[in-house]
């Protein structure tokens, strides 16, 4: 599924601020696996996601999706099979467009954006049913602009749009970090439902150790560009938030929780 081999990345090479982040990083995520990624700031979590999505070029190494090398592909090409939800809820939707327009755009992903009507009227009941599943009352707000939504509603929309069309890999970049605790729970539950239902291989970067422990089949802990913990299977299932926290403190990462 996703395979990263021999990834090297050094920021600001040749300067006093030179930071060597990844040194021969290797990561393999099999089909349908839900992976939580934790680590302190600067440990390389976001760089990892950016390398997968093509926003950051590694100095060397390969990124393979389905056994196909995508290291040279441009960012937008990679999103053909990858969905991404950002920390900032505003990143996943167009604020000035209505929910219906946003969802119509997402529904058409993978097809041409030509001169046919932007919204297919016959699809509206289907969109409503999708929105109703979010339990946020969005199905009655089809003609509202996305910018008028709350952070949680907008993130739910972003999640829906990212997973609407068939993708095989989902990237969640601290997607609950900007939400209040209650909304974060709602979005996290929703995420889990979607990931399981569509059997998406998922990389979820999070600062919420409880989420990292409670959700997913596997937990990766990053420290200074290295994977220092890789817990899966029964061990992961038995993992509690306190255990993750203990691992963190042992790193001396000084994690605030």
């Amino acid at each position, binding site marked *: 599924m996703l395979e990263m081999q021999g990834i090297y990345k050094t920021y600001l090479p040749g300067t006093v601020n030179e930071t060597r982040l990844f040194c021969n990083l290797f990561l393999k995520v099999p089909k349908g696996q839900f992976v939580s990624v934790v680590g302190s700031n600067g440990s390389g979590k976001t760089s990892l996601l950016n390398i997968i999505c093509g926003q950051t070029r590694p100095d060397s190494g390969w990124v393979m999706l389905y056994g196909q090398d995508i290291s040279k592909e441009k960012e937008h090409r990679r999103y053909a099979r990858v969905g991404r939800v950002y920390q900032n809820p505003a*990143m996943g939707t167009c604020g000035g*467009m209505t929910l219906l327009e946003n969802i119509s755009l997402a529904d058409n992903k993978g097809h041409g954006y030509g001169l046919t009507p932007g919204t297919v009227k016959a699809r509206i009941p289907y969109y409503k049913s999708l929105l109703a599943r979010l339990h946020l009352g969005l199905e009655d707000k089809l003609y509202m602009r996305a910018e008028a939504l709350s952070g949680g509603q907008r993130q739910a929309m972003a999640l829906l749009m990212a997973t609407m069309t068939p993708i095989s890999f989902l990237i969640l970049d601290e997607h609950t970090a*900007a939400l209040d605790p209650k909304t974060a729970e709602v979005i996290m539950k929703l995420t889990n439902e979607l990931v399981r239902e569509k059997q998406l291989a998922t990389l979820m970067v999070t600062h919420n150790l409880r989420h990292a422990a409670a959700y997913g089949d596997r937990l990766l802990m990053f420290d200074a560009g290295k994977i220092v913990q890789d817990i899966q299977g029964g061990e992961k299932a038995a993992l509690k938030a306190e255990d993750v926290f203990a691992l963190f403190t042992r790193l001396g990462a000084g994690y605030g929780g």
Partner: protein
Amino acid sequence: MNMVIGVLEQGFIYALLAMGVLITYRILDFPDLTVDSSFPLGAAISAVLTLNGTPPALTLPIALLAGGAAGLITGLIHVKCGVRDLLSGIITMTALYSVNLRVAGRANLPIYAGDTLFLNEWTRGFPPWLAPYSKLIIILFIVALVKIILDLFLKTKAGYLLRAVGDNPSVVAALNKDGGYVKIQGLMIANAFCALAGAVMCQHQRFFDISMGTGTLVTGLASVIIGLNMFSKLPRLKNTLAVIAGSILYKACVSAALSLGLAPTDLRLITAALFLVILILGKTRVRKVKPHA
């Protein structure tokens, strides 16, 4: 009465330009200075072709295509060469100044002699009571056509994508689409409209002048900002109609200032001063996605 008709004629011609600026400024969030040269480009082409015996109406689609090419150049400079948006427009604008002189052959090219879009066999056949409005009717027809086409386009999938790329480029990337191409498309459409406005203007005033492009962007922006601020609150009013109304209102303001005793040479000063007033009164809201934290 003549003054009102004059304002309406001018206002509707500049409304074509305003619809172009609506695309770049409002939809794409791209400060496109190319319009200062694509407007006279359309005029130059229309003037030269008319003198060469091309039917005046046929010069309009040709001007439209030329404007699209101007937008394409700005788009390529910005997207492919990675030059900043404002500078890309300035480069094309500067280069086109010479191109416009080449096209027209000189800085001022009158077309008084022959028929024009507004003065031909067909318009001479208008009954006397309708004759004073003949220009206005023709302009209105063109504006309505462009408005309807633009409205329809913005409702298509391509139109949705165009709106999305100005609103939030990361959504377009997530849709597996190259936002750069969409931007280029938008710039082409916008400059095509501007060149069309220039061509119609040239037919209306019956001459091309190299300096007629100066301040085009300011006029277009003023129309868009007045239109959106004053009329977009009205329910169910499309942005295209709002900027057409804005264009007419703006031309009326300029015309009023002139009739208050200011000299025609003060025109650009009035244009700029009015624009400043509009900006201050309007305090245009900036809507942009905050960069990823």
